[in-house]
């Protein structure tokens, strides 16, 4: 989706505001949202791609206005309702619906910090080789994608093959993992931004087989 979350190359967003001795969480509720999100993710009713897609489905003006953990909170509500873990009525009242079963938490305290086990993906042949010139495809899917707009149509070089990973575009919408190779692709800054960029500078972007075509 060509959403406002896809920010690479936008200008005039203002100065970078650094805070000295920044706390991990600025408000108590931010930590609770962070923890609720991790604990609910342990039910595995959704995956990280689906969660990112939910963040990015927030309307642009709202997305820019909301603080980071506010976005997490709003997306978490949607994911829980969609996967039928809670109902909207329950969220509004804060009370479980009459007769709803009591579960056993998927993430008990003794499993924190959660050590995620990588699930084995099938071996898939890479479509590209290290050193090969490639072009990022000009794709504009309305669903989830991790191909940033600023890379589309640009020429780059495969610098490193990171191996097989789950394809975010299909995984986010529960349409399958479509495992494929993901590569670090190096782009000259001038290929991306023209003559205004410094001649030696580069940008490396991690791109999947399905985002690339031979140059």
């Amino acid at each position, binding site marked *: 989706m060509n959403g406002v979350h*896809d*920010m*690479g*190359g*936008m*200008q005039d*967003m203002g*100065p*970078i505001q*650094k805070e000295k001795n920044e706390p991990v*969480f*600025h408000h108590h509720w931010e*930590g*609770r949202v*962070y*923890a*609720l999100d991790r*604990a609910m993710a342990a039910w595995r009713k959704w995956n*990280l791609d689906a969660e990112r897609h939910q963040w*990015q489905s927030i*309307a642009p003006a*709202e997305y820019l*206005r*909301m*603080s*980071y953990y*506010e976005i997490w909170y*709003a997306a978490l*509500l*949607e994911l829980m309702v969609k996967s039928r*873990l*809670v109902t909207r009525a329950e*969220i509004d009242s*804060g009370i*479980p619906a009459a007769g709803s079963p009591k*579960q*056993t*938490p998927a*993430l008990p*305290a003794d499993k*924190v*910090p*959660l050590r995620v086990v990588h699930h084995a993906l099938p071996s898939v042949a890479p479509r590209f080789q290290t050193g090969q010139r490639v072009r990022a495809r000009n794709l504009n899917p309305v669903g989830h994608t*991790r*191909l940033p707009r*600023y890379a589309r149509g640009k020429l780059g070089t495969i610098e490193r093959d990171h191996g097989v990973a789950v394809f975010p575009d299909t995984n986010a919408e529960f349409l399958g993992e479509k495992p494929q190779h*993901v590569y*670090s692709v190096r782009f000259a*800054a001038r290929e991306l*931004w023209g003559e205004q*960029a*410094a001649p*030696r*500078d*580069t*940008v*490396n972007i*991690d*791109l*999947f087989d399905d985002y690339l075509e031979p140059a």
Partner: protein
Amino acid sequence: MKPSRRDFLATAATAAGAAAAGDLAHAEDHGHSHTHDHTHQVVPSDLTLRVKSLESLLVEKGLVDRAALDALIDTFEHKIGPRNGARVVARAWVDPAYKQRLLTNADAAIAELGYGGLQDVHMLVVENTPTLHNMVVCTLCSCYPWGVLGLPPVWYKSAPYRSRSVIDPRGVLRELGLELAADVEVRVWDSTADLRYLVLPERPPGTEALTEDALADLVTRDAMIGVAKVLPRREGGNA
């Protein structure tokens, strides 16, 4: 997805309507001096209550364990943070064999020190040299190496950093206080997949006599994101 998005927007709009006096309350809460606009931290005043209500609901339904929530927060407030990454960097500076392992198989080398493994992701360590400066961004969201640096600071997740890092990295670095010579290559790593990047900064000159622990004390989070260099002395006089 469309119908639920409409519901979602209704929720978001309610939240927006409730935004009031968030900035002032926030500034007073923490006693920081906030002279700049802090629009990204305008917080609906009822979010505290709504999150509390959600937590009770999920506890009641047996979906979350309150002790697990406390442990998750404690982990990132007290156990996992940039100190972990600093130890990795210091070890790489004093032990060339470790550095080699770190650059070729970061997951395993980081695990040697007992860190990493919190997310379903892999790590890659990129080395700064006198002629190459690496910096890390996630233009699409907030991807960050939690296992070695903890949770990212607000500026890393903010629109200004995410948008400009790829188009004007030198301008961003200058704004953050780092001026690079024109003949140094700047390489930006946009974390668009499940690879997480840690910058191995240059060891500062004049630190040959320091112990590994003392070196780790010099290494800052910003240097490991690639928006600062490591200085031979920690600013603030604690080195």
